[in-house]
């Protein structure tokens, strides 16, 4: 099993969610995040004083998937989150040793 984590632009969340649903992924965890990469932040001006805002709002999306699906799910996320402009974010996956469904105690693939 793999854990796929994607940091994406907040306004792309709906696109990514529907693309994953269309692929057949039925669960995910989404949290608000902030950070910056190569694009850095932006500047704002209040009463003539300039402020640099480094940490840009992002959405962090996490999905647990079976090994067989992992590459294609990653592909689905990247494709649906892409705008081609700076600040699109990053996605990665890592191996997961164990998954348990809290309600039933099922383990492994059955718990996904």
């Amino acid at each position, binding site marked *: 099993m793999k854990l796929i984590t994607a940091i994406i632009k907040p306004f792309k969340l709906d696109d990514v969610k529907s693309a994953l649903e269309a692929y057949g992924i039925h669960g995910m965890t989404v949290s608000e995040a902030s950070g910056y990469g190569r694009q850095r932040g932006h500047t704002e001006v209040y009463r*003539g004083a300039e402020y640099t805002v480094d940490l840009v709002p992002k959405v962090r999306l996490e999905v647990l998937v079976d090994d067989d699906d992992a590459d294609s799910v990653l592909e689905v996320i990247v494709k649906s989150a892409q705008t081609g402009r700076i600040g699109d974010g990053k996605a990665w996956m890592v191996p997961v040793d164990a998954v348990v469904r809290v309600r039933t105690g099922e383990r492994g693939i059955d718990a996904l």
Partner: protein
Amino acid sequence: MELNAGDTAWVLASTALVLLMTPGLAFFYGGMTKAKSTLNMMMMSFAAIAIVSVLWVIYGFSLAFGNSGSGYYGAFSVSGLSSAVGELTNNGGMYGIPLLAFAGFQLMFAVITPALISGAIADRAKFVTWCIFIALWVTIVYFPVAHWVFDFGDKDAAGNVTGAGWLAAHGVLDFAGGTAVHINAGAAGLALAIVLGRRAGFKKSPSRPHNVPLVLIGAGLLWFGWFGFNAGSALGATDTAALALLNTQVAAAAALGGWLIVERIRDGHATSIGAASGAVAGLVAITPACAFIAPWAAVVLGLLAGIVCSLAVGLKFKFNFDDSLDVVGVHLVGGIVGTLFIGLFATTVVNSAGANGLFYGGGAELLGKQALGAFAVGAYSFIVTLILGFGLEKTLGFRITRDAELEGIDITEHAETAYEFEGLSGAGFGGGALTAKTKVSAAVKDEEVSV
């Protein structure tokens, strides 16, 4: 003279309008602070309403408008205001409005002036010391200065005037408080910013306004209330009131535009904080001048105030004083611009009770008087506030600790937070439970109900 119902109705309505400016100011300032200090910022304004209103009845109105025969301070003759009941207003001449209506209207000016100062010391003033400061400051600064500027003395049947304030008697024109309110508050703000010192991170990691829509709501309420402030100062439903109202509107509008033009050229963007600030700067500048200049001149004044004030708010970074929300840049500078502008553009064509400025054949005489008024009020306010501020700092302590400032003054001074950050479902961490103390009293109540 008999009581005039129309005039009285207008002054009573204006009183309510001017009261609304202080909560409006709380929003205007509160939106510009950090989320962790917005409640304290707003509380500084609300405290002014409470403290000054009480003092006003006890001795404030008397000290400002009582007839002592002196040009510098009033008498205690109308302390408690019971002797004012049933009287008509006599302020350089009789008005057909109750003296109590005049006292109520002037109270709102006394309330908002110390509230204006609070913007200079955002995030870092001890609340109790602030409350004591308000009481002392209005007593030794605002009440006397209001006497200097707004008290035109008692006129008897023979036409003799006694007890007028020295600036009013000297012929300084300030219709609604460019000197007594705005220059006064601005100079005091500068003094307190010096007394309390710079906030942690001044210039290095300054705070962004946490709620810009709140700033705009505040600016809107100030604008609305300002019609009472300026047009109400005519003390009647007269053509002077109409002139003041129209001038107020166009000056604010032109200043809003002026501020945005500077921003667009200098910074590349016209901002909403700039629009709110520009409107307030225009309202400040038109305050002393609103009944003495023609409407077209009010447009010029507004534009000038918007441009000058938008440049003046940068001074604090040059001179290293942390006037957090620009009380100096907007109120002191805007007040000076408006007060001096009268010396140039005032004309008796629009108001026979006024005077002619430099451009209307009056020569430099009026301009000189206006400069004297601006300087006298500004210098007195700055010096006395500086002494009072340092006195309070040395005795009670005026500034909170650095740790408290970093944690947030709302928590440390008021044990509250403005916003609940637990997420929309309310199921976040730290959702809170009643403390043991509250639980006990709740249990007692339950028992009483079951019995």
